């Protein structure tokens, strides 16, 4: 069944200390590919049946109200099978 996914990221200009800590830990383990790491949040939301356009719009409103803080974060809403 399809689910609605909301991904929340700190805005690029907001410092992400957790991402920086991860970026610093990777090379210590021999992973040298990363020039930068940013850490975010992912919400998986299930609804009855396949999500409708109305439900997606409602999820967007919920994301703006609660799931993300628009002062410091951006979000995307998508549907995943």
């Amino acid at each position, binding site marked *: 069944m399809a689910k609605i996914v909301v991904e929340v990221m700190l805005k690029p200009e*907001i*410092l992400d*200390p957790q991402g920086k*800590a991860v970026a610093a830990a990777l090379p210590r383990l021999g992973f040298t590919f990363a020039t930068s790491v940013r850490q975010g949040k992912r919400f998986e939301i299930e609804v009855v049946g396949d999500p409708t356009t109305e439900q997606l719009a409602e999820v967007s409103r919920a994301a703006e109200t*609660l*799931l993300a*803080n628009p*002062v410091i974060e951006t979000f995307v809403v998508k549907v995943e099978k």
Partner: protein
Amino acid sequence: MKVGVVTFPGSLDDRDAARAVRAGGSEAIALWHDDADLHGVDAVILPGGFSYGDYLRCGAISRFAPVMGSIIEKANGGMPVLGICNGFQILCESHLLPGALTQNQGLHFLCTPQKIKVENISTPWTSNFTEGLEIVIPLKNGEGSFQCDDETLAMLEGESRVIARYVGVNPNGSRNLIAGISNARGNVVGLMPHPEHAIDPLTGPSADGLPFFTSILNAMVGK
């Protein structure tokens, strides 16, 4: 004068805040997160702690507690509100104050006596200070880094709404060393360090925090 102190699930500093209110000469009224009735209080303190476990973002869920609806309405009408630490985070999430509190730059939870400078004494919570006074009160938080966009920062500075600033090394990465701000009207103040833990040298690093609580009594009596 009655000062309400809200207890959310996970509040830690509500009892110290109530004690500080009494030490400042006012009556402390316990308010409950799930009760929209403010019981006739003249001012409200949102105390520190980890309301709702800091889940999602600090203050994000508390902001929608029934008591907050009443507080937001009254605050917009001019009622004095002081948010300390988690209370500051709740005020930002409520959009009563601009900006947001994010994770400390150094990632660590901090718990230390912190020197701050009181820069605006025109609010009902700071009127008993002298402008520019440096005080030492506890700072204890994991998400205390004040962040906002450049435009908001310029507005806060231009309107003298930075009420307190860290002195010395920036403890958490806050923009412009901001430790506390007010809304445009001045009645709503958010402060990251904890004046309620510094009202008596026996139990705190100083008694430097007490004027926050005597100020509010003066502000309300003077009306």
